[in-house]
Each structure stands twice: as C-alpha cells, then as structure tokens.
C-alpha cells in the first residue's frame, strides 16, 4: 500500500482504485497482522503459573489431613483409605484466599495470595506497556487490572464485612462453601482476569485457555485432585500426607505454564515488513 509505486501491490493505486473485494481483503489481512503483533498474553500465563507453583509449599504447610477409615495393620503401622488435605480455618471466619485475615494454618497463604495477585496484575499491566513500546501496537489491559484487583479486594474485605452487615452475610452464604474450603479461590480470580484478557486480546486461543483453566480451577476448588493420583497408584507415606494438597495447586498451574509456553512460541516479536 505505498503511494510511491514501489512495485507489486503498492503500485496499484497509481493505476486506479482497488476493487472493493481486494480492499476488504487487504484490510482483513492488516487487522490480522496487527492483532498478531499486539498479542502478548504469554507473560501473564507464565507469571501466574509460576506464582501458583511458588504457593505449593504454603498449601502443603497449611494442609490439615483428615484421616478417615484408618486400619491398624501392626503396632505403629496404619493404612488409611481416604485422605483429605483441605486448607482449613482455625476460626469460624470464611476462608477465601486461604485463610484471610486470621486463618490458622492458612494465615500465610492468604497474605501470599493477596500480595501475589495484586503484584501479578500490576506486573502484567507493566508488561503490556513495555510490549507496546517494542511492538508498536498496544492492547488495553486496564479492564484486566480493574477486574483482577477488584476481585482480590472483594475476596479480602467481604469476610469481615459479612460478620458486620447482614445483607453481605446473606449474599456470602449463597456462595458454595466448597469453592472456598480448599483455599483455591485465588485461581478463580485468576480465571476471571483471563476471560477479560481474552476479550481484550480478541484471541480464540486465550478463550480456550481461559475455559480450560476455569475448569481446572473449579475442579481444584470442588474436588480433591489427589484422589485421581491415588487411583493411579500414588501412595504417599504417612509423613507425606500434607503433600496431597499439592495436586490441587499444580494442576491449574500446569495449565497456565503449558499454555504460556505455547503462546510464547507463537508470539515471538515481530514487526510489520515494509512492502518492497
């Protein structure tokens, strides 16, 4: 599309106006190239994947195994057929981000997610600004930041508000308890951000990633993922029972890291090539 008539397509302008079909085709191609150039969502996927992995020791430390149906095989030896390693609260307050504000064993987990979520969203916005300077086209990440930080703040302030304000308490009671009991609500906040980002990026691949991640985040919130591993033959020793909290964290993290690696491979820096 050069006015200088530098050969090929650009010179067509000098010969007359393009056909509408041709023009629409060029514009569609231009739109695709621009969209491709501004895609940069591999970073938040990898970032939140790593932040999730970094939280594993805290989940393990916070896990309180509930042993049921233990059979004593011999003095000092027992076999337990069901193990639940949910993050629990020492008090009666709702456990949202893993025990905020005072959640017994989950205390540090709650603070970790508060800092990690806010930091992750801010770093993502800074990343998009940096990427825009490199690529020359910018994706708006403002909605992503607003949704992510607002959801995080709500997750922190609603539990104490619920104990003071009846209306909030009634709303709070409508949230299924299983979504909160494992301390994996942070994954749902990350998932909400991914949906907003997928809309901003206009990316089908990110929509698929957000859908898969939301599914695994819900699974991790509603089900003990380690049960799958037990069926596959994993038999942690009695002293390692708290490790059974790890699969619920590692499964959603793996989705983010795999999708992030694939997106990184696909989103290598590219600049538009000047028509020759």
């Amino acid at each position, binding site marked *: 599309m050069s006015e200088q008539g530098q050969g090929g397509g650009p010179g067509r302008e000098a010969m007359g106006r393009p056909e509408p079909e041709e023009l629409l085709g060029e*514009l569609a191609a231009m739109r695709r190239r621009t969209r491709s150039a501004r895609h940069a969502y591999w970073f938040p996927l990898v970032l939140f994947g790593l932040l999730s992995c970094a939280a594993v020791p805290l989940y393990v430390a916070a896990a309180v195994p509930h042993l049921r149906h233990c059979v004593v095989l011999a003095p000092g030896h027992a076999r337990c057929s069901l193990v639940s390693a949910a993050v629990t609260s020492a008090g009666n307050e709702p456990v949202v981000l893993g025990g905020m504000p005072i959640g017994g064993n989950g205390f540090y987990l709650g603070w970790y997610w508060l800092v990690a979520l806010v930091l992750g969203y801010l770093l993502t916005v800074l990343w998009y600004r940096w990427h825009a300077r490199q690529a020359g086209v910018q*994706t708006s990440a403002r909605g992503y930041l607003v949704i992510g930080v607002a959801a995080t703040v709500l997750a922190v302030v609603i539990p104490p508000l619920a104990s003071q304000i009846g209306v909030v308490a009634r709303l709070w009671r409508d949230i299924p308890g299983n979504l909160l009991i494992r301390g994996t609500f942070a994954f749902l906040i990350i998932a909400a951000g991914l949906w907003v980002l997928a809309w901003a990026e206009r990316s089908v691949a990110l929509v698929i990633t957000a859908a898969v991640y939301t599914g695994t985040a819900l699974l991790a919130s509603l089900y003990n993922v380690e049960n799958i591993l037990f069926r596959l033959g994993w038999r942690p020793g009695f002293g390692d029972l708290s490790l059974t909290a790890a699969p619920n964290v590692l499964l959603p993290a793996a989705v983010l890291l795999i999708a992030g690696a694939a997106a990184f491979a696909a989103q290598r820096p590219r600049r538009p090539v000047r028509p020759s």
Partner: protein
Amino acid sequence: MSGDEPRPPAADDTPHPTSGLDDTVHQRHRLGVLTITAEAQRADFGYLRDALGLTPGNLSRHLTVLEDAGLVQVEKGYEGRRPRTWVRITSDGRAALATELSALTELVRRHTGPNGASGKQS
C-alpha cells in the same frame, strides 16, 4: 418514460452503497490507519509507517487529514530522549470505519450477487 416499463433488475429504492463512502475515510491508506488503530488501543507512528509502506511525510499528511476530521487523536511524547508518536482512533473514527466497511461490503454483495455486474449469470 412509461409507467409500465420494466425496471432493470439491479435497481431498487435503496441508495447506492457508494453514497455511504466518505472521501476522507475511503482513501486506502487512511482506511488502513483507521483499521489498524481500531484493532489496538493505540498504534505507534513507526508501526503504521511500516505496515502501510508509507514515507513519514506521507503518513503525517494522512494523519493530519484524519485528525482534522476528528477521526484519530495523535499523541506526541518522548520515551527517554526519543520522540514517540502514538495514534488512537476516536469514537467518530470507529463509526466512520464501520460505515465505510459496511458500504464496501454492500458494494461487493451487489457486485457479486445474482443481479450484479459481475454475477455468474450467463
């Protein structure tokens, strides 16, 4: 002209799609600027120059036309010591682009439709 005279098949009472084409927008490079800036929150002058294959002077002239028409906003600033110009489409620019694209699509539809000039009818 008799009232019983049959009308040509392509004619109807709707205005011809070319009446929806705005000269400010229809120029293909300006249409390119609007298309790129509509796809992103904002686009850099260098990106537009490379994507459209224009010289800086030509791109500046097109941007001035679009800015004067209120279709884009040009933001000039510095990053460190380097001057940097960003172009952002306005809501009027989005509306003008949508009108232009629908007019072009309608033109194509008429052109390639069963009664169009280049229809496949024998």
